[in-house]
């Protein structure tokens, strides 16, 4: 019992595609190997399950067929077009070079391609001889010295002008103060008194006017205040009176209603007692 079917044989057995003899051998093998049989059964179950996958419905698109394939001329082939293109380019280049006349030179590690006639370039102007670093330094130094001298000259001039103007201002101010001091010392005692008296009288006059004005305004304000207060009191009294009248009126109405209700109740009581006595007498 060394027979062991391979995977392809087992699949053929599963799909029942084996010949009878081979089929019998596999069956014997499976009977002897329940595990393999179980595995094959599970595979059959898997087939049963995956057959539940449904087909998708699809509509075939309309067919638009072109005519029978046309024989493409050699002129239309891609290769031909490429070759002709390259040839045309080369021809163009040849014509252009013939017309322009190119010149290619190689000398001293330098490749030169030029077109048309060779141009004789004029001799280049001799570049000016360069300055040495010492000369440049010297030039810088001399210009710096000149600049410093000019700044120093300008500075001393400005300083002189400033000191002169300050001195002039100081002199002018001191002269003004001296004049004022002289005027103050010249004024007499009487003049001072007269000035103070006139100031006092002026002040008194202004204060008096102010007091008069303020008292008049206060009077006017107080009068207005009293009038407003009396009006307010009158109005308040009127409102209170109206309120009292309204209250008294409502009390009167309530009383009347109460009276009417009482009378109605009494009349209904009287009428009901009358009926009861009538009924009793009729029963009797």
């Amino acid at each position: 019992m060394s027979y062991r079917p391979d995977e392809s044989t087992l699949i053929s057995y599963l799909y029942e595609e084996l010949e009878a003899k081979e089929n019998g051998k596999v069956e014997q093998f499976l009977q002897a190997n329940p595990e393999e049989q179980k595995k094959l059964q599970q595979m059959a179950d898997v087939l049963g399950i995956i057959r539940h996958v449904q087909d998708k419905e699809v509509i075939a698109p309309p067919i638009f067929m072109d005519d029978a394939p046309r024989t493409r001329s050699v002129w239309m082939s891609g290769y031909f077009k490429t070759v002709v293109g390259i040839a045309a380019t080369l021809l163009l280049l040849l014509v252009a070079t013939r017309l322009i006349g190119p010149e290619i030179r190689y000398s001293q590690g330098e490749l030169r391609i030029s077109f048309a006639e060779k141009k004789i370039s004029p001799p280049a102007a001799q570049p000016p001889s360069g300055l040495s670093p010492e000369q440049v330094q010297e030039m810088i130094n001399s210009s710096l010295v000149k600049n410093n001298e000019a700044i120093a000259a300008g500075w001393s001039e400005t300083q002189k002008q400033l000191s002169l103007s300050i001195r002039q201002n100081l002199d002018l101010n001191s002269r003004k103060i001296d004049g004022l001091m002289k005027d103050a010392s010249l004024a007499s005692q009487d003049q001072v008194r007269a000035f103070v008296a006139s100031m006092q009288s002026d002040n008194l006059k202004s204060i008096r006017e102010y007091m008069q004005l303020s008292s008049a305004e206060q009077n006017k304000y107080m009068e207005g205040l009293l009038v407003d207060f009396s009006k307010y009191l009158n109005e308040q009294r009127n409102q209170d009176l109206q309120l009292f009248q309204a209250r008294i009126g409502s009390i009167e109405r309530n009383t009347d209603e109460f009276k009417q209700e009482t009378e109605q109740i009494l009349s209904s009581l009287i009428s009901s007692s009358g009926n009861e006595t009538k009924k009793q007498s009729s029963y009797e």
Partner: protein
Amino acid sequence: MAGTLLDIAMMHSDTLITRAREGDKNAQGKLVQLWYKRIYNYGYKFFFDHDLAMEVAQKTFISMHKNLPALQDVARFKSWLYTIAVNYCREELRKRKTVRSVSLHDLRPGEGEESYRWEESAHRHENPEKQLRQSELSDLLQQCLMELSEEQREVVIMKEYEGLKFREIAEALHISENTVKSRMYYGLDGLKRILELKNITKETIGYEL
């Protein structure tokens, strides 16, 4: 019934293929009508994507139209057609691996908005609820298929859904019949494990349906 008639027509389309090969446009159109659904469904099951399946189906039939005159043996038309489809599927898969993109078709609507899933079914007159459950189960199983390797998926789809014989699959994939069977074996074994992981069994499916 319509499906059966279509199958019969597909099985006996040798004359049609011969005429199409000779340049009969009408026969070519009929071939497309006959095989379009099958090739689309092969692509759909391979990618689980409508747009890619449409792309593959269209390319396959354009290629068929161009290369049909070169087909030597009419009897091998089926495997020849699937060879073209398989090649385009592999090409699209390579593109997808390099360019990551999300199809709008992948953005499936929510559960409450899935009425189109039974509306698109051919058996619309049946119980819509049952149809919806079948459609959901189909999608779930399709997801399981997508977890298989590319090679195993090709074989399983061709055998189980496209009904190709092992010989035809071997011809389509240019491999030996034993290799096809071996891939089928490991594919089923892989599916068994995937279904176990997702707790999908005969019993649960019977309960669902």
